[in-house]
């Protein structure tokens, strides 16, 4: 086992940690005093608008900006050839295909070709929003259309047009994962369930605030100051620095309040590079405020995936042995964070089950569609969806009770830490208890009676279960599964806690929150460690690369803050505590280890008379260091800066075996829904979620995250789809055509939890928030349950027309039982 177990750490008296503290963020947001990307007033601010391709695939034959230059307020523009000369291509995770050149990705369309509708071609700046829009509209770009490839299944055929000519293939990455002996299992199993093809559709969490980038360039110091909702600031800095051939330490990235990211804003570096180059060229602060339409074109779509030739081996007694499939992952026109998704899914290779054999041939495939980015549940939810679908289909086809079948095959409570087929270590959990609680939330027995009563009424009731894991805290060495030459290994986060000149406490975390309440949870933990109150702690809003709290992997993604962010803050607070103890010990004439921090005082243990308030300690260090012993004065600065290192080792790249994630939160969902036989309309009658993310830091925040992930899943399952027509045109480029669920569409949500502390993390907490897409699994299963097995649910997207097709027996022939 590659993970070392850490002992749980004391966090003081725990007066605050674990409680549902109201959030520190809320007052300013409720008073409309937050500061989001487009809020900051800046003197002489210019605005950028991108000229974007209306073609999915075309050669650029001419660009004429002359009419734009005559628009009043026009400031200047950035053309593709200029961007190409000023930048290196963005770094790519995958190596070039054998015998070919690598993909080239730049901030504006490269190589004279556009590869998706909405790809930026020219960046235009003007002195107002309206003028920038007008000037961009006046730019004439001529195109020679090329044949687009819209479907990943077509993209891998020999006669498909190649999207990046120099790569000579539309396959960005290809690999075989083969653990156990699935051929043996399939040959000897009592039953094999085979499905020709399943499809996980394209959608995204579409944060309500689109991307905003403000770039200021200071020629005096050659500094870029970038403000925007950056979810992964140091990687963004690195991507921009290497592309712009500019020192990373002369790029400062600041974010304040962020109106959601859910992963997709990780792609900020692409447009930010164009805005930064233009700001430098024009010597004007410039802002690009992405429109909803633009966001839907390239804001980052979730991975669309085809599962082909899927086979599940099952025994007579209901034991599931193994699974195999071929995956075609449609990554869109550029890989960007991809093809990491080709490795990320293996964090949950077993899903919630005791699989012994798993074999997946995985290909990441280019198409002429918007690029995908990590999106809530990134790459794991697709795999867990197909596993859960297959479990559900197997139960239907073989006549197993869906509850008993899952209970039998779940990883059992006494098996933790549980090592998966690929060497990942599930840290803790109680899936059977979670499922029982979820079924209680929907009153399962009563729901079955309801189902019976509905027969023949024109309405059908279906009950579905969704079992998922939320793997958190990546071992970045998994990137080496994609490209062994990559330097990544392990994971860290940073944190900084300082005592100001007046004794007030300021904490900065490397994680960048966009609604998860980091200011709140950090304050809870720091207050406990320093013996202060929750209100005593001020936590920095957003992120600032100049504050030294960040490490290379800093940011908010991959469900990790409760482990890495809080871990770093704990370590940083300990450093500060130690310095306070040194000073207090020196002043009060006691050994530092005899100083306890309590009630805003540094006290000598068991001696109520000898104590120093924090403001006195701060005053001495900041203004009277001469009164301290030199060895103490030399050591203390009252700034605790520390990292948290997640304990990982390198995986075996040959076997693709090793621990890829530190924690596994679990979520079990159950739902009862009703479908109308005439219209195919789905109404959710009851919805329950049971979460287990270890020791809670703030149960209210956790419940809120579960609600949010549930809404994303329900909305994706029923309403949201980035559909493209055969021409490669996105047919859901706004909230009119892309329906994000409203309050009226959503059922009431019933929540419960289980607490299985993680043995591997500082306070037993696990990262959570992404949620693993459980509603997609649960709703597909419930629709299947309502339909019976006469039509099969083989797509993750089930609007009324799909449900009607299923009621008429669609796709039944694609499922075989041997």
């Amino acid at each position, binding site marked *: 086992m590659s993970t070392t177990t850490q002992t749980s750490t004391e966090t003081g008296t725990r007066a605050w940690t674990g*409680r*549902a503290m*109201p*959030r520190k*963020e*809320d*007052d300013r*947001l*409720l*008073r*409309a*005093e*937050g500061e*989001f990307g*487009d*809020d900051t007033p800046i003197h002489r601010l210019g605005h950028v608008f991108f000229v974007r391709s209306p073609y999915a695939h075309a050669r650029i034959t001419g660009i004429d900006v002359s*009419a734009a230059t*005559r*628009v*009043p307020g026009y400031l200047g523009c950035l053309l593709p050839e200029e961007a190409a000369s000023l930048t290196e291509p963005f770094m790519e995770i995958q190596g070039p295909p054998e015998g070919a050149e690598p993909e080239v990705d730049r901030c504006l369309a490269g190589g004279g070709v556009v590869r998706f509708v909405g790809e930026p071609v020219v960046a235009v700046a003007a002195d107002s929003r*309206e003028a920038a829009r*007008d*000037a961009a*509209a*006046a730019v*004439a770009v001529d195109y020679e259309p090329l044949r687009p490839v819209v479907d990943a299944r077509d993209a891998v055929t020999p006669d498909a047009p190649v999207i990046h000519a120099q790569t000579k293939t539309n396959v960005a990455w290809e690999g075989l994962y083969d653990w156990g002996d699935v051929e043996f299992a399939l040959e000897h199993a009592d039953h094999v369930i085979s499905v020709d093809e399943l499809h996980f559709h394209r959608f995204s969490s*579409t*944060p*309500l*605030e689109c991307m905003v980038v403000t770039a200021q360039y200071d020629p005096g110091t050659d500094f870029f100051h970038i403000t925007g909702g950056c979810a992964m600031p140091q990687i963004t800095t690195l991507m921009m620095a290497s592309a712009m051939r500019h020192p990373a330490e002369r790029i400062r990235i600041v974010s304040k*309040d962020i*109106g*959601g990211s*859910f992963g997709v804003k990780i792609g900020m570096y692409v447009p930010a590079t164009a805005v930064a180059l233009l700001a430098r060229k024009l010597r004007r602060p410039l802002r690009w*405020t992405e429109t*909803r*339409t633009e966001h839907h074109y390239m804001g980052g779509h979730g991975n669309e995936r085809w599962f082909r030739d899927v086979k599940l081996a099952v025994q007579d007694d209901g034991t599931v042995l193994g699974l195999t499939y071929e995956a075609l992952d449609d990554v869109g026109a550029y890989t960007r964070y991809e093809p990491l998704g080709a490795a990320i899914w293996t964090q949950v290779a077993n899903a919630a089950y005791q699989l012994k054999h798993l074999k997946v041939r995985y290909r990441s495939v280019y198409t002429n569609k918007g690029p995908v980015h990590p999106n809530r549940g990134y790459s794991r939810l697709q795999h867990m969806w197909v596993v859960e679908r297959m479990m559900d289909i197997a139960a239907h086809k073989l006549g197993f009770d869906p509850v008993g079948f899952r209970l039998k095959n779940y990883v059992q409570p006494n098996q933790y830490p549980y090592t998966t087929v690929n060497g990942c270590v599930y840290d803790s959990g109680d899936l059977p208890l979670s499922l029982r609680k979820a079924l209680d939330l929907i009153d399962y027995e009563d729901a079955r009676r309801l189902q019976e009563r509905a027969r023949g009424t024109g309405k059908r009731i279906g009950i579905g279960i969704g079992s998922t894991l939320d793997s958190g805290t990546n071992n970045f060495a998994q990137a080496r599964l994609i490209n062994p030459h990559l330097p990544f290994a392990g994971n860290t986060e940073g944190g900084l806690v300082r005592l100001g000149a007046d004794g007030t406490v300021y904490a900065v975390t490397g994680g960048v929150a*966009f*609604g*998860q309440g980091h200011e709140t949870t950090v304050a809870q933990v720091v207050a406990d460690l320093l013996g202060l109150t929750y209100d005593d702690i001020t936590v920095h809003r957003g992120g600032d690369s100049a504050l030294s709290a960040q490490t290379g992997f800093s940011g908010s993604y991959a469900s990790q803050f409760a482990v890495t962010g809080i871990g770093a803050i704990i370590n940083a607070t300990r450093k500060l505590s130690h310095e306070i103890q040194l000073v207090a010990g020196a002043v009060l004439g006691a050994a530092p280890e005899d100083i306890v921090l309590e009630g805003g005082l540094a006290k000598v243990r068991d001696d109520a008379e000898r104590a120093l308030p924090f403001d006195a300690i701060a005053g001495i260090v900041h203004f009277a260091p001469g009164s301290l012993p030199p060895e103490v004065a030399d050591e203390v600065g009252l700034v605790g800066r520390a990292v948290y290192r997640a304990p990982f080792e390198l995986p075996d790249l040959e076997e693709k075996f090793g621990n890829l994630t530190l924690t596994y939160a679990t979520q079990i969902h159950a739902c009862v829904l009703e479908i109308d036989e005439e219209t195919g309309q789905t109404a959710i009658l009851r919805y329950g979620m049971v979460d287990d993310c270890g020791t809670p830091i*703030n*149960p*209210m*925040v956790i*419940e*809120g995250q579960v*609600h*949010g992930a549930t*809404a994303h899943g329900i909305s994706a399952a029923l309403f949201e789809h980035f559909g493209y027509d055969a021409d490669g045109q996105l047919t859901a480029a*706004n*909230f*009119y055509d892309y329906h*994000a669920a*409203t*309050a*009226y569409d*959503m059922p*009431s*949500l019933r*929540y419960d939890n289980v607490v299985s502390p993680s043995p591997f993390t500082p306070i037993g907490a696990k990262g959570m928030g992404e949620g693993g897409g459980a509603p997609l699994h649960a709703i597909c299963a419930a629709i299947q349950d309502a339909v019976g097995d006469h039509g099969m649910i083989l797509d993750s997207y089930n609007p009324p027309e799909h449900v009607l097709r299923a009621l008429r027996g669609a796709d039944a022939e694609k499922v075989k039982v041997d």
Partner: protein
Amino acid sequence: MTVADHTTVESPAPDVHAIEVVVDGRTEEGTVSSRTLLVHWLRDELDKRGPKIGCDTGNCGACTVRWNGRLAKSCMILAVQADGTEVDTAASLAAEDGTLNNLQQCFKKHHALQCGYCTSGMLMTATDLLESGEEITDRSVRRALKGNICRCTGYENIVRAIRAAAGQDVQKPHGHEEGEAQ
């Protein structure tokens, strides 16, 4: 290839209009072009951060304000149309000293906001609902919120907060302790 701009380019007459609008109880004067949206004027000229922009099509409701007492999406109104009218943004809800009003306190207590981007619009819609005299039920609140998209909360806690603001007894957030200091 000029397209939308030929009038702007060639027309010598400045396309500007003086407007006077009472915003959050204060008379504000401005000079706007015919095409300036109310939401842009409020945000760019007055630094009003309540109304936000989350879509291009009037679907998201992040820009919701009250316009002469009626609920309106300020992205669907031209600034010139607001001349001589009253506009209230979410910045008008708290007391002068910043004390949150009952609705805002309920939002906080029930964790009805995460990123906060939709919050101002939600507060305006909820204020309008609560003052409308309509019966407050789970269903009526959800119907009233139809025009406001939230991508963080799943709406559950927003619905609870609004019902709590109407004096109803609703489920408290997970982990909530009775008598918890707010």
